[in-house]
């Protein structure tokens, strides 16, 4: 009965999201003749791929009842580490590995502060956000490091059968983590901790460890992003990923996931990402949206979306 209600609500949620996406598409197709086209669709995906990857990690973190605002900075810092490793050793493999693992390492710091020190996630990651960005500026001296290695660039710009590499990569990640959340011990532990941390502990879940783990996960995914960013920009930007964290959170909340934790599903965040992606792309594409109005439009649409959820009693709490 109750379960049935839940599934029903879940469906409604997805349908609402779908509805919003459709409405947006219609509106923007009217506003711009270039909106509905295969190449533009590819653009939409490519332009939002960073958001999409970050959204995976952020969803896990939020389900566990946390928040990770440092991912944007991790992208930059992990990139630095990766590029330096690449420069030193000259080995691409090591470079890539360094990007990803260092991202994870930064996650460890977050995890320690939050899981073991018990510092509130929001505040802790705001601090580490500054730390990682600062470290990046310090090492790079604020300068761009250009990376013209074919391997990196292939990951960032290359195509397989005229499909950008990132698209299958994204698909793979999403399938993987969809199942991680649905049927892995880690996923289950995340839901448990987000739902009732103490009960989780009494039920033999290593709360601190899993908390640490989820931030490592989110950091690692940010590291993966940095690989892609370096490839796409064929350079390492000290300001790469600036503000990405908030865009990600917005996307997830647009997906109707409760920031309080314990609930949520990767499909929902995916939908949220789609909405953001479409809006951004449309703002680029519609010639008559005055640049001064971009953010006004963006904010208006976000508010509208939340209001609609409220109508269906979906979005909840802080």
């Amino acid at each position, binding site marked *: 009965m*109750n*379960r049935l209600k839940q599934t029903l609500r879940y469906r409604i949620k997805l349908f609402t999201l779908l509805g919003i996406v459709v409405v947006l598409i219609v509106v923007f197709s009217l506003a711009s003749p270039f909106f509905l086209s295969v190449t533009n669709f590819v653009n939409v995906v490519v332009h939002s791929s960073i958001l999409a990857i970050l959204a995976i990690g952020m969803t896990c973190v939020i389900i566990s009842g946390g928040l990770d605002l440092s991912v944007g900075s991790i992208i930059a810092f992990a990139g630095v580490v990766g590029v330096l490793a690449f420069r030193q050793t000259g080995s691409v493999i090591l470079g890539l590995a360094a990007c990803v693992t260092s991202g994870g390492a930064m996650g460890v710091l977050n995890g320690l502060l939050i899981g073991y020190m018990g510092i509130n996630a929001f505040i802790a990651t705001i601090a580490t956000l500054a730390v990682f960005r600062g470290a990046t500026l310090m090492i790079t001296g604020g300068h761009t490091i250009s990376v013209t290695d074919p391997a990196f660039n292939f990951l960032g710009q290359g195509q397989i059968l005229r499909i950008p590499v990132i698209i299958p990569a994204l698909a793979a990640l999403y399938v993987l983590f969809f199942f991680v959340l649905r049927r*892995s011990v880690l996923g289950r*532990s995340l*839901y448990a901790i987000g*739902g009732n941390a103490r009960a989780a502990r009494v*039920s033999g*879940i290593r709360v601190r460890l899993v908390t640490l783990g989820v931030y490592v996960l989110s950091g690692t995914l940010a590291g993966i992003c940095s690989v892609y960013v370096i490839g796409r920009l064929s350079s390492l930007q000290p300001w790469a990923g600036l503000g990405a964290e908030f865009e990600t959170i917005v996307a997830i909340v647009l997906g109707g996931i409760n920031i309080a934790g314990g609930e949520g599903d990767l499909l929902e965040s995916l939908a949220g990402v789609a909405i953001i992606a479409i809006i951004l792309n449309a703002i680029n594409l519609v010639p008559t949206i005055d640049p001064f109005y971009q953010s006004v439009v963006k904010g208006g649409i976000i508010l509208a979306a939340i209001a609609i959820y409220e109508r269906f009693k979906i979005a909840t709490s802080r």
Partner: protein
Amino acid sequence: MANHTELRVEQISKSFPGVRALQEVSIGFRSGRVHALVGENGAGKSTLVKIIAGVYRRDGGSILIDGQEVEIHDPRMANATGISVIHQEFSLFPELNVIQNLFIGMESTHAMGAVLDKRSMERRAREVLGRLGLSVAAGRPVKYFSVAEQQLMEIAKCLIRDAWLIIMDEPTSALSDSEKNTLFNIIRAMKEQGLAILYISHHLEEIAEIADEVSILRDGRLVGTYDVGAVSLANITNLMVGKDIELVFNRTRKEPGRRVLEVKDLAREGSFRDISFTLHRGEVLGLCGLLGFGHAEVCEALFGLLSPEEGTILLDGRTAGFTSPLEAMKAGIMYVPEDRKREGLIQTMNAEENLSLMSLHWLSKLGWIDLKNQAAVARALIDRLSIKVTTPKQGVDSLSGGNQQKVVIGKCLSRTPRLLILNDPTRGIDVGAKEEIYRIIDRLAGEGVAIIMISSELPEYVGLCDRVLVFRHGRIIKEFAHEAFDQNRILAYMLGTAEG
């Protein structure tokens, strides 16, 4: 102080999607009387209370005070009409100090009702707390006070609100017996002063002790209202359940098997010391004591929730000091926590997920959960403990207290544990459910599981245990073998009134 004489509910009905919680219930609560309200979980007690307290709106019927009809839209209004509720879960704010808590929502103010009149509040608070025989630093955050003190503060809150009808929902659930007695004295005093008290409890003996009349609810209907003198506890139980229960405890005892657990000189600063005992297969060992006497902490230590500072724990002869619940579980120790809501259940998960939570490490291969297996396990447990769910996927938040408790116990039984620790397994559940849990305990013992249990009701020790260890101030002061059981002596030792 009693400005009213009677509150009557007439033909009250209330239904939620799928359930008819109350059907034409009519009861009268008179000042100067303690009116007990009993019934199994889901019988409609709390619904009725919530309607009187203005939390729910009733579907039908009427509420009359001194004969004329009143409307109670929200808690604020209830307060205004002199009705106060003391919920099982206290409604105190840990960060706020005593005075702020006592006057919360009805602060006395000067300067157009914005600025607090601290002096007058302080005066009033002292006076009321004095009446309850509680002398505390009124400026301190309540989080620094003991449960009993907080309980009294709850009552002080009602008095300060000039309540004449005070509703107490399971007021003793967190109290030790001595604290309980203090409470009863206060209740009697309030009765003298002409207050009406609506007393909700599962502990029938308490009702016999304190209540003047008792109303029994079953399935949302009023069975009847009786003078306590006029009915025996037995009939009350029967009337609640609707069928006769001749013997509540059906414990089949046999010779305990080989030794499973041996504890030597276990000690932890501020909790317990010199704790030594043994436990055998198929044996049920009761640890009893008053709140904070260390028996609960010993259980947590055995399960790796607390780390003892000295002493050894031998499991099947091998030393086993557990630093985390997981280790303990892997060694075959399972633990049913005392507080369902806080420690037992993940409210956002469904029954199946909750039931499999403690078995994830063997339900999974390489970190992936075998969902088929999980479903099977859950199914099995649901049948075995006859948990009432429409589907294993039902959210636990929608289950009745008894069934929730069964889920918590079920979590521990997905694999037969070597040692099962039950911390007050029948807390706040109805007679029917209790009885089933007694049977489960008996069956487990029969299967050779070694069981340690703590209970808030002495009869349970007597009815279920093979041995009882009495704790006092962190020490074991007395061991009773089954044949030597005697409620009163056990109690005497707990209270420290018994010699040697």
